[in-house]
């Protein structure tokens, strides 16, 4: 057993020297430079690959400007594995990383981890989703998710001429960013669009495309005959709902607003199956997350809240260069 193990591990160790340089902006040498952990919510969705690209861009720019920065990218595979994310933060704290840039999977479950990091003298910048205790973080770099929900409601209202029956499919309990989108959407309907009737706003899609599709199918079965509009609050949610609408022959007939782009959704928008996609700027999130952390480490004052902007893509404006850049953001390889 020992010999087998040794062979396996030596192989891995040999591989590591090649792998370790992969993510660094340059040959960061530990003493003058910074090692920064960037921890996404999951590693499967395209969104996080764009965050990764932004983080790499920041590291490259800072390194070129004379401050060597090395990014360590590591996240749980699935976006509901809180324990794994806690483990990852713990690992980085134990290894004495210089700073942590984290998209917390849960607004409360990650608090002890961030506090442990703080106790060990390691600062944390939060991005994408908030943490319930803001006193322990350096800064919060994110989309104004509430405003994203407002944009979705306004677009839906405009296209339905202010009246109709709509469904909101929520994402997952405890995910702060999507909860705010849902809130912004519902608040706007209530305040600005009194003639829009909400058929359902209490269902959750779950974290996978499959579970979102299942939930959306159930909703279509129940309300399909009088449905005019649909709002899905994130990428997995939107893809699942699109599949369900396609399946029920509703795609293109009702007004469907989604959140976050992916190639599949952009194609669907070209086919007019999706009338609007709220866009965030994941590249800016990764970029500003790393940059803010480095500025903090250099002793500079940084704002507590850094918005990264949100906009609405529609079949009409999707080829504008600005929107196109957000629809097809850079991705890390």
């Amino acid at each position, binding site marked *: *057993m*020992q010999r*087998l*193990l*040794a062979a*396996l*591990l*030596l192989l*891995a*160790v040999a*591989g*590591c020297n090649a*792998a*370790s340089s992969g*993510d660094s902006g340059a040959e960061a*040498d*530990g*003493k003058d430079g910074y*090692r920064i952990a960037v921890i996404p919510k999951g*590693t499967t969705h395209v969104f996080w690959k764009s965050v990764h690209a932004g983080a790499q861009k920041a590291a490259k720019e800072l390194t070129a400007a004379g401050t060597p920065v090395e990014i*360590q990218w*590591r996240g749980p*595979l699935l976006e*509901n*594995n*809180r*324990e794994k994310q*806690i*483990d*990852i933060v*713990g*690992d*980085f*704290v*134990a*290894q*004495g990383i210089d700073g942590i840039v984290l998209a917390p999977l*849960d607004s*409360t*479950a990650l*608090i*002890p981890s961030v506090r*442990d990091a703080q*106790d*060990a003298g390691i600062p944390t910048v939060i991005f994408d989703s908030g943490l319930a205790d803001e006193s322990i973080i350096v800064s919060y770099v994110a989309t104004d998710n509430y405003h994203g929900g407002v944009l979705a409601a306004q677009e839906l209202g405009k296209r339905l001429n202010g009246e109709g029956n709509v469904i909101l499919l929520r994402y997952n*309990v*405890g995910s702060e960013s999507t909860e705010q989108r849902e809130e912004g959407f519902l608040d706007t309907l209530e305040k600005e669009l009194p003639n829009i009737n909400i058929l359902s706003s209490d269902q*959750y899609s779950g974290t996978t495309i499959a579970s979102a599709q299942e939930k959306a199918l159930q909703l279509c079965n129940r309300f399909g005959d009088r449905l005019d509009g649909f709002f899905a609050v994130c990428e997995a949610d939107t893809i699942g709902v699109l599949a369900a609408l396609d399946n029920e022959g509703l795609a293109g007939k009702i007004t469907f607003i989604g959140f976050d782009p992916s190639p599949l959704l952009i194609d669907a928008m070209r086919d007019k199956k999706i009338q609007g996609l709220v866009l965030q700027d994941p590249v800016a999130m990764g970029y500003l997350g790393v940059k803010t952390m480095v500025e903090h480490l250099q002793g500079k004052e940084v704002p507590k809240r850094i918005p990264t902007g949100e906009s609405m893509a529609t079949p009409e404006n999707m080829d504008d260069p600005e929107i196109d850049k957000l629809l097809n953001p850079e991705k890390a390889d």
Partner: protein
Amino acid sequence: MNEVSPDSSFQLVRRGGGFVRSVVGPFAALLLVVGIFTIADNMQEDGGRFLTLRNAQNVLVQSATVGVAALGMTMIIISGGIDLSAGTAIALSATALAWFLREDFSPAVSVAAGLAVGCLAGCVNGLLISLLRIVPFIVTLGTMTIYLGLAKIIGDNTIVRPLPDQVPEWMQELLRPRVEQAWMVFAPGVWLLVALALVTAAVLRYSVFGRHVFAVGSNEATARLCGINVPLTRIAVFSISGLFVGLAGLYQFSRLTVGDPVSGTGKELPIIAAVVIGGGSLNGGRGSILGTLTGALIMQVISSGCTSLRLPNPIQEIIIGGIIIAAVTVDQFRQRRLAA
């Protein structure tokens, strides 16, 4: 799972030799893994953080939940069984515990309820196996999804969130990597695991019940002929294991501070892997507590080591898979040597 093979009953007699191989073997493997990662880490320019107290505290805390559940799984596997429902039962216990806390029951009542749920889940497994005479693999494959469903019902399909002041301080400190009292060195939950491991190992080695567990797993027919109540032994093994699962639920909750009904999905695999890497045989009759804990640690050390070497997740998963297969390969060689 319960095949009667002549060599496995023979092995009960030759327990002494098996001890050296099944306990010292995995322990040497752990040292080897630690050694290799330490050397590789120190070869990095900014390395030297791997073999530190801080990281040891971290790795022990991370492996504690799997470790506690694996104590029970060791007993089950020695008795010739397996428990695929352990993962979802952990989440079920944790969700129940969170629910009781949220409904403002006292921490003591909530913890007792969590443990009781785990114990009951194990007991149901044992009863179904003994009464319906279905192999443990199938029964627990079924209860695996049953417990997942029950947890979702308790959690009303979402996360159960007790308020911060409803979660007592000691529960939050149970598995915090850095302990408040420096003299403790490691988190209280780690010490509790060590104490329970000692008790379980003693029970397995020295008590009549423990010998019955080995006998049932080695050769069920012979065990029955010797007058051992096989169904009762099996129910007891699964119930005790369920208690450990309930405790693992408390461990998991103390780290998450929320009850997540789906947090146990897939967790049974590292638990079973810990037992197998530690020298447990899925044919029954063999396994050791020290080996199991070593197995759980090996997996976590690899995970932590890969982080410090900046290896991506996929590489880490491949290494752990390779080690499981290597461990079982060695296990088979050993069996053949004994049979010869």
